[in-house]
């Protein structure tokens, strides 16, 4: 079976690189991007099977907007999104409880940072299986 490809979009370079290493060790192919723009670009060129997405990058809502943009793209909307962020709650925004809301936060799963690698790998495995 072909190896599955995961794209990590997070403005924290250390986190991107270490997550990439962990995913590669688990048998995935991984690519990284450190901004929303670079992330959108790589979604098109790398065509990953899954996206791990941060929220706060250049602005505190970059990730939210990127997830919405992706779900409106007929070619990219099928790619499951795993939101990985330490934004717990902004004024009036309950990230955890609104994850999956098609208008507000159309992501397939949500994990809180910092995350145990086992938990992350399990979630990624589950998402790829059901996709």
């Amino acid at each position, binding site marked *: 079976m072909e190896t599955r490809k995961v794209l990590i979009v997070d*403005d*924290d*370079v*250390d*986190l991107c*690189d*270490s*997550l990439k*290493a*962990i995913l590669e*060790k688990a048998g995935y192919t991984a690519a990284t991007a450190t901004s929303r723009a670079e992330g959108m670009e790589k979604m098109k060129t790398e065509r990953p099977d899954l996206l791990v997405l941060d929220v*706060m990058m*250049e602005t505190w809502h970059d990730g939210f907007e990127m997830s919405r943009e992706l779900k409106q793209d007929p070619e990219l909307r099928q790619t499951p999104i795993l939101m990985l962020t*330490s*934004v*717990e*709650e*902004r*004024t009036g925004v309950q990230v955890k409880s609104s994850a999956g809301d098609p208008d507000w936060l159309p992501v397939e799963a949500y994990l*809180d*940072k*910092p*995350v*145990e*690698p086992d938990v992350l790998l399990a979630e990624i495995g589950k998402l790829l299986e059901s996709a």
Partner: protein
Amino acid sequence: MRDDSLAQRAYWLIRLRWLAALSAAAGTFVCARVFGVALQERALYGIALLLLAYNFVLLVLLRHLTAAPGDRSLRGVTRAINVQISADLVILTVLLHFSGGIENPLAFFFIFHMIIASILLSVWESYLQATLAVLLFGLLALLEYSGAVSHHCLAGFVTHCQYQEGPYVLGTFLVFAVSLYLVVYMASTIAVRLRRAERAQAQANERLRAQDRIKDEYVARLTHDIKGHLAAIQTCLAVAIGGPINGQVADFIDRAYRRTQKLTAFVRILLRLTKLKLSGVPEMTVFSLSDAAGQAAETVRKRAEDKAIHLSCTLESSGPTVRADREAIGETVVNLLLNAIKYTPEQGTVSIEVRAEDDSVLLEISDTGIGVPPAELARIFDEFYRAANARQIERNGTGLGLSLAKQVIELHDGSISVFSTEGSGTTFRIVLPRARVRRTTASEVPADRHRISVR
């Protein structure tokens, strides 16, 4: 007055009117049947019925008005209240006419209308309603006095009719008029004060809510940054655990270590900020700002040399003195210098200058660095704010350094400002009040401390 509270009071007025109509009917019945007063019963019951019917129409109308949004509904409700009170005055006058006119003490009830008007309406509208009441009452008295309309004598209540006795009529009318205007004056004075207090309270609540939102944002931001460092440390170490120590693993261990340093620096500056916010009592001593600046420059000299940056000091040797917390000021200057070095390319220049100026001492730190984009200049002292070009050089900065510097300087009655040209350099200017050259007696020290601690 706020929209919903005005509407609530309009409903209150309608509830009062149900009571008034029923009381009018009951009062008529008791006076006529129990006490045997000669009353125009049919006319009075008719008025009570009219009042009930008119109140029902008003209720429907008010429901309709309050369903409309915003300003339109507010103006509508105010107008409706004005019309209602005027109509009530007319009805009370008619009631009075059928129950003895000027001889009926029911005329006191006009006072209730005046109080209601003062509570619900603006001051001038209340005086207008009082004038209408006075005119209606005067007209009634005059028409009955002149015989233009018939007088219904309250036989069984008064022994002889007085409606045509000039001095009685005039006296009653004058006292009536003065009473109404005085009631409006008193009630509206109180109402205006209450309304003002209500508004001030609402504004204070709004301010508190805004501050609370800012605090929530602050805490959310702190948590995010701390967890960001922790997440990076954890995953970097996760790579290392279990794997043989090769070049890649060593790199991740090194990265994790550097992130713990950053997290420590973040926590340290955060504690410093918190301490300043909570107590704000600096340890005040008098010292030479030139000496402090010179020491700060020595502290960062190694860092400058590592980047081949020329560190230039222009310090007035006579040394203008300031009264300040030496440690806090020194730390602030060091942090500004480290910032300047960080954002200045190799071979650049960072300079520090101290000079006296009238009552103040100026300290300037200039660099030939990347500068601050003009659009972002106004925000760089904000907590957590980081300019876009600064983020590119240092990805995980705290965004708190300049904010701390500003707080420290302002705590010393000083000011900090920034001048910058993007791409060619930045200057931070600190102005501190000059320590007065005179002997400090022991008794002055506590007074000075007190002044600072209460800020």
